[in-house]
């Protein structure tokens, strides 16, 4: 089976470009050019140079000795948290800002949930001297204050999304409306593996550097390129897409996704899309989607702003439906406990999103010689206020 996007952007039955005609010229321009531009020598050279000198890649693949002892398997951490700006998001924004320049765009818009993608976008806009507007849900602005301040300091304008649940979904709606209103000079840097084709494929390719590095790094450490499992948390699914990419067609590698169960999958306050969703259309693609029987999109919930999204990228829907990936979900409490455990066993405070991936050990037992690579997608600085409240640290 093929787990990559086909020419029309479908992963099995999922994907495509369900967009209003107003967006057609922009999306079509991108569709026709993205692969050609992305694989030009000059593009690759500039992209790789920036990833190395500016982002600080390759990010380490770190053997987590104490965590491994605790959970009885060999755990490696892919340290995306050590990237400039503190998460994997910057891999994609570097790629897309170069793409925007090649397409002659001068104005950048983005949506953000936890603020990591917003910061990563504001950062590359500062780097390239481009105007930057970031849409962010009002609720997220309140719970991710440090990232809002960072974006402002980087020169971006943060516009609150005040409709609906006032979180990531609504910020995405506002960004799409902005793009409709500004069709000529603007490029929309989508931060996750969602949206109309070619976005899921483009974002996945920019993030695929994660699994590309895991392969040679693991070869150095374990004498083999393929781990037994790769594990990532999933909201829209960009760090997961990048972590899985080079292993999708390696059947001996188990692929594990951890979604946000919020207060429990059946609590009514959850973002566990694979468990709660049905096939539907959100933000321009057909995918698994949390919705009412009437087709209205449901307001999700998670303690982590970055996973608080009612859909999941079309690639992941296909991985779920086809059985290629195992899907689990972790509650707020499990994710917070896993974050605390990682902090105290390894001295690494993860983002709360990332904490969900580490909660896998609550749900799955690995064998002692299993090599498990976990995507440590982001660091927890931005979540300190939530940690302080939750663990009564102040």
């Amino acid at each position, binding site marked *: 089976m093929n787990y990559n996007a086909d020419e*029309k952007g479908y992963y099995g039955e999922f994907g*495509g*470009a*369900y*967009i*209003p*005609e*107003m967006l*057609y*010229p922009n999306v079509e321009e991108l569709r026709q050019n993205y692969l050609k531009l992305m694989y030009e020598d000059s593009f690759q050279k500039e992209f790789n140079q920036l990833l190395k000198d500016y982002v600080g890649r390759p990010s380490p693949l770190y053997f987590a000795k104490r965590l491994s002892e605790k959970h009885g398997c060999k755990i490696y951490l892919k340290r995306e948290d050590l990237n400039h700006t503190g998460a994997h998001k910057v891999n994609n924004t570097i790629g897309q800002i170069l793409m925007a320049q090649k397409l002659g765009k001068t104005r950048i818009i983005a949506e953000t949930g936890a603020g990591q993608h917003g910061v990563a976008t504001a950062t590359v806009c500062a780097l390239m001297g481009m105007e930057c507007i970031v849409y962010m849900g009002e609720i997220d602005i309140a719970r991710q204050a440090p990232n809002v301040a960072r974006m402002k300091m980087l020169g971006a304008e943060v516009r609150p999304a005040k*409709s*609906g649940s006032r979180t990531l*979904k609504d910020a995405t*709606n506002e960004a*799409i*409306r902005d793009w*409709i*209103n*500004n*069709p*000529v000079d603007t490029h929309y840097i989508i931060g996750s593996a969602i949206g109309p084709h070619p976005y899921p494929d483009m974002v996945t390719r920019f993030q695929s550097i994660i699994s590309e590095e895991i392969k040679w790094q693991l070869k150095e450490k374990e004498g083999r390129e393929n781990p037994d499992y790769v594990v990532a948390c999933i909201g829209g699914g960009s760090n997961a897409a990048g972590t899985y990419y080079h292993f999708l067609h390696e059947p001996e590698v188990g692929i594990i996704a951890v979604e946000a169960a919020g207060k429990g999958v059946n609590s009514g306050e959850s973002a566990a899309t694979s468990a709660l969703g*049905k*096939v*539907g*259309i*959100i*933000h*321009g693609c057909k995918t698994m*989607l949390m*919705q009412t*029987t*009437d*087709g*209205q*999109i449901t307001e999700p919930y998670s303690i982590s702003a970055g996973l608080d999204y009612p859909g999941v990228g079309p690639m992941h829907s296909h991985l779920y439906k086809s059985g290629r990936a195992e899907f689990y979900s972790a509650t707020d409490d499990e994710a917070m406990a896993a974050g605390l455990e990682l902090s105290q066993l390894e001295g690494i405070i993860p983002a709360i999103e990332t904490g969900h991936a580490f909660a896998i050990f609550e749900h799955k037992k690995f064998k002692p010689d299993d090599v498990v690579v976990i995507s440590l997608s982001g660091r927890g600085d931005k979540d300190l206020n939530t940690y302080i409240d939750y663990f009564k640290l102040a």
Partner: protein
Amino acid sequence: MSNRITTRLQEDKKLLSIYFTAGYPTLNDTVKIIEDLEKNGVDMIEIGLPFSDPLADGPTIQESSTAALKNGMTTEILFNQLKDIRKTVSIPLIIMGYFNPMLQYGVEAFCKKCQEIGIDGLILPDLPLDVYQEDYEATFKKYGLINVFLITPQTSDARIHQIDDASNGFIYMVSSASVTGSKSGFGQDQENYFERIASMNLKNPQIVGFGIKDEETFKQATKTAKGAIIGSAFIKHLTANGTEKTDEFTNLIR
């Protein structure tokens, strides 16, 4: 294919079409709004099926959609409200909405229901041309439904011809690059665009939408086009006046 829409398009007059969100201002206003609009000389109506995430709409229609959903509007309730509409109303009726609610209802079941009620056409901004042609065109036609596509100032000539070929009623001409309700008045750019489209001699007539709110903008839009659609301005009227004084609104247009 011929139905109430194509018949109306053949009349020698500029058509006034009005959009409203079903379930707004209150859940059961749908039938009264439709009947009043017909009584006051409106030529065609777009009944908006509200959606939680209306990507192509500005704040006015978003807010009316949110309110309608809060009032309890669903696809099933709308169909029930409309079941006897053809006993009192004879102008063309179009359902306008986003594709996901239709997909969940079942595309064929939705089309069948539309035919039973006497709906003449559908406007689904996020159902793209290629998906429509590959997967749904036959079903729409089986139930006598005209599908209306949008074009914008950025749509290429080649794409406009493609859309013209795929259309069997009219083309919804978005006046400017914008979500609904976001621009005021038409400038030189729009007039040039209206002229450009008129000179393409398309087989389908065009009806202009987005930015029409009064007599002046209606006249500008219909100088070359067959008609114009008013949405946000009428929603604002409903917000201020409820379902009363529809005549005051339509009298302002022509």
